[in-house]
């Protein structure tokens, strides 16, 4: 099941550049939360702080509190443990190109020491079904490589790979921006279905997509969270002029 995420006074830096400024918000469990804002506004940095990926860059650091359920991810757990609990999907599908479809999905479990064939088979099937890819690949699981799939299928394979380790949170950084409209619709349907089991945070430049998939939306600007509210409120009657200017295209 998904967990609530409570973020308090989160700040992040790349070297001396203050990229995330004192962000506080509550991401509800088992809902999709969209983060929007112009390029460089801090939304991707924000999600990378949610799975401690931000700190993998040697010049980067973060301060503040991020609690997932009862767990303070910067105090109570290692980055490896956090990344098992928080799956991430990126803009460009990045399957392991030489691995089979099966091995792509099973890779996370194998890294964590799972070897039992029966367990792996079950997890691979469940994950591919959750990512709505099973029917398309079930006959070629070990015959075809991840790279042989279409772009949309590769992205769903990456989602299956993220789900295989049974996370509580799924972070999606522009997951459909490189996909055609049909593949995009499949990813959006998937987000809708996965909400019941996971907490989903999606970064997107596509505001219609945010409006379609998310219950809550946050607008970032210059490293700060300007407004965080229901998606309905943000897209029909935002409280902050800067939000309105951004979503109506009046920036610049």
């Amino acid at each position, binding site marked *: 099941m998904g967990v609530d995420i409570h973020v308090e006074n989160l700040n992040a830096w790349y070297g001396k550049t203050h990229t995330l400024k004192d962000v506080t918000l509550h991401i509800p469990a088992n809902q999709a939360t969209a983060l929007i804002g112009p390029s460089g506004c801090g939304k991707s940095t924000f999600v990378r702080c949610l799975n401690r990926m931000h700190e993998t860059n040697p010049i980067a650091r973060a301060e503040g509190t991020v609690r997932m359920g009862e767990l303070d991810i910067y105090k109570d757990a290692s980055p490896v443990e956090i990344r098992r609990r928080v799956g991430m999907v990126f803009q460009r599908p990045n399957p392991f190109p030489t691995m089979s479809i099966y091995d792509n999905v099973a890779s996370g479990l194998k890294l964590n020491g799972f070897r039992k064939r029966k367990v792996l088979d079950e997890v691979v099937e469940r994950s591919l079904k959750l990512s709505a890819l099973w029917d398309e690949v079930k006959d070629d699981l070990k015959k075809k490589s991840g790279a042989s799939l279409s772009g949309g299928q590769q992205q769903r394979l990456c989602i299956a790979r993220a789900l295989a380790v049974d996370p509580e949170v799924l972070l999606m950084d522009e997951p459909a921006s490189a996909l055609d409209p049909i593949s995009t619709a499949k990813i959006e349907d998937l987000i809708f279905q996965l909400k019941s089991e996971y907490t989903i945070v999606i970064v997107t430049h596509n505001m219609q997509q945010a*409006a379609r998939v998310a219950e809550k939306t946050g607008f970032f600007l210059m490293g700060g969270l300007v407004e965080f509210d229901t998606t309905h409120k943000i*897209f*029909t*009657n935002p409280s902050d002029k800067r939000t*309105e200017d951004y*979503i*109506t*295209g*009046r*920036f610049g």
Partner: protein
Amino acid sequence: MRIKFQQNLDELKERLLVMAGLVEQAIQRATEAYSTRDLGLCELVIRSEPAINRMEREIDQAAMDLLAMEQPMAVDLRFILAVIRINADLERVGDSAVSIALRVQQMGMFANGEIPVDIPELALLAAAMVRKALQAFIEGDADLAQSVLLLDDQVDQMNRDAFRSIGQLIGEKPEMAPQALHALIISRNLERVGDHATNIAEDVIFWVRGRDVRHGAHMHEETPVEE
């Protein structure tokens, strides 16, 4: 900045104002025709209806195109929705003008008699409501729009008074019944014009403040929150 989209929104507003001009002229001519029994004016009002109807269709189409092609959000979305609703209300005001003109034509067949209803006064008030509501739309002025809502009660009261007076007249002078009933229907049409002006004002408030005040919604809130 979405320059083309902004231009399209400006054009949509201009088109609606052109239509509003036609409608205002129709209602003014129709009520003047009542006072002067000028059948030529009645004819002009009736002949203006196809142009108003055509504009209604064109504005709807332009608004639908913008919704489909530009997928507007927030204040732009509310503006286009307001335009679609105002468009429909203006067309109905045009229908009321035609209805009044037709009644005046028929009244011309009867001898002039004293009708105890101040139609010109009612017409003045209803037309003022339309003017104010449109001014609020032109200026995006929600406070001005709010002031229109208060006038509707006066128009409603004048229409109720007309109903009572005309009922009394028909009882006392049955030979006046045909004229009196025409006057009553004109009064009713003007009351509806007031209702449409109220709708337009509510749509302006929705556009500017993002609040749906139709049917008394938000009436019990303390102070309006300005954005």
